């Protein structure tokens, strides 16, 4: 999955939509050209205030991931993109950037996650959501 719909894709869609003939400059594509690339998810998390605990609040039972899990949905559902595979192919979670939404907990069918809220005062602290 590419991260951004690139300009050619956009132009293609516009052409398909039966857009105007080619006289003059289409302002729509001009605007698209100046659209900045989307922020990386790490950069977005970098805007948030986190108070880091020493202990992780999400612990993965790797045995379940290795043996029972048919589809590693944790890799795709997390809105902070915190799950990844380590060198040995095990699923790990970068819990430090957790937004505490619970999506991984609810979506992991084999229940491999021991998921708690961080201790009082730790974890993400939203200021303007």
């Amino acid at each position, binding site marked *: 999955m590419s991260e951004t719909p690139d300009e050619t894709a956009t132009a293609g869609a516009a052409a398909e939509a039966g857009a105007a003939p080619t006289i003059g400059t289409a302002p729509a594509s001009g605007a698209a050209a100046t659209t900045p690339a*989307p922020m990386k998810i790490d950069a977005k998390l970098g805007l948030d205030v986190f108070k880091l605990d020493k202990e992780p609040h999400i612990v993965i039972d790797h045995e379940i991931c290795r043996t029972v899990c048919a589809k590693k949905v944790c890799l795709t559902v997390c809105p902070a993109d915190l799950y990844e595979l380590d060198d040995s192919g095990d699923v790990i979670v970068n819990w430090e950037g957790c937004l*505490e939404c619970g999506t991984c907990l609810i979506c992991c069918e084999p229940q491999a996650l021991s998921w708690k809220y961080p201790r009082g005062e730790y974890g993400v602290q939203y200021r*303007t959501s």
Partner: protein
Amino acid sequence: MEKVDVIVVGGGLAGLSAAYGLAQAGLEVMVLERGDYPGAKNVTGGRLYTSVVRDLYPELWEGAPFERAVTREAISMLADGRMATFEIAAEEFGGRRPQSFTVVRAKLDQYLAERTGEAGGMVIPKMKVDALLTEGGSEASGAGGGPGASGADGGPGASGRVIGIRAGEDEIGADVVVVAEGVLGLLSSEAGLRERPAAADTALGYKEVIELPASVIEDRWHLNPGEGAAQLFMGSVTKGMMGGAFLYTNRESISLGIVVGMEQLRSRPDELESWQLLDELKTSPAVAPLIKGGEVIEYSAHAVAEGGIAKVPRLLGDGYVMVGDAAGLSLNALITVRGMDFAIASGYHAAQAIAAAKAAGDTSAAGLAGYERALRESFVLKDLQTAAKVPALLENQRLFTHYPEAVTKLMADIFTIGPGPTEKLSKTGFGGVRRSFLNLATAKDALSFRKI
């Protein structure tokens, strides 16, 4: 064990609304909130319908830190690189008593906490509750019975009485515990008061807050000073999955985010990652100009309860009541989410019922039953009942694929002057309507829409 009249678990809108009423009634009430401050963990779209809660605590809303009164509403359908927008500005949305306001939770929740403190309640932040204590430590089995299952006598399978909470090493007792822990319901499901949320009944919501000067917001959305806009997007934004995108204008920022069903998200065959939906929306040619020049200042995510009335657990039992998202009191009305108004109203009615139960000296399920009666008579359970068919309807994929495609195509056709001769408008219009809207599948949909 130390003991107070009422412990409220969770200082969100539901918990604080309960605590404020209890403090006003002169009860000894303690709110325990795990965040650094109330609101620190909370995410909403968000727009609060004040129209339905204004008469509960009328004194609270005058000075509340609202962002903008929503006077302009828009729904945009997106498909195949096209966006068709239907917009309405109506005087009755605004005026002296606007029906809804955009809000920022960190501000609103702290405001409610301050008022609660002034009324004599105690709000303790940075304090996470680790367990609900039940009599004899017994596990309850009353979950999942629906609101009808809370008989006044506690009903069959009633849980052991809830007698207090544990936070770290400390145990505190209470005559009544108000469970206001939000959508995940970790403590209440552990104690057997409800089931854990299922993916099919839950959506992921996430958003960016993007800073823009007030004047830019007012120009871009055609607003008078202080007025706000709400814009919803459906169609290709969720790639056929149940959900949509929302945009709310705050004073000097906008909240732009996605709500998408967790079941659909996790059962996708491709590798699409949830967070990509927002980036694709932001960079689409139709939406990019709306946020141009804006600076992202926060990124947040939260689960949304979408099970509707069928998934509302028992609302009360001996020594406890459930309020707000913890009780599943939230409504996905097609693509807008309503939960904050339900949270406030359920907190209010819980406070009234608890005060009455305390006065009568009976905080058993029977003594607290007034809470459920009041919710049934209020808009909370009435609106949830009216919308009982919505969750099933939302599973209809055509809503997120076919209809946005058809509407945007029709609009584009009407406005397209191609190189060849142009069809008569009536032909373009009727042809499109016939092709897209008059067939068996859509007729069936029309029947199911009538049910909501």
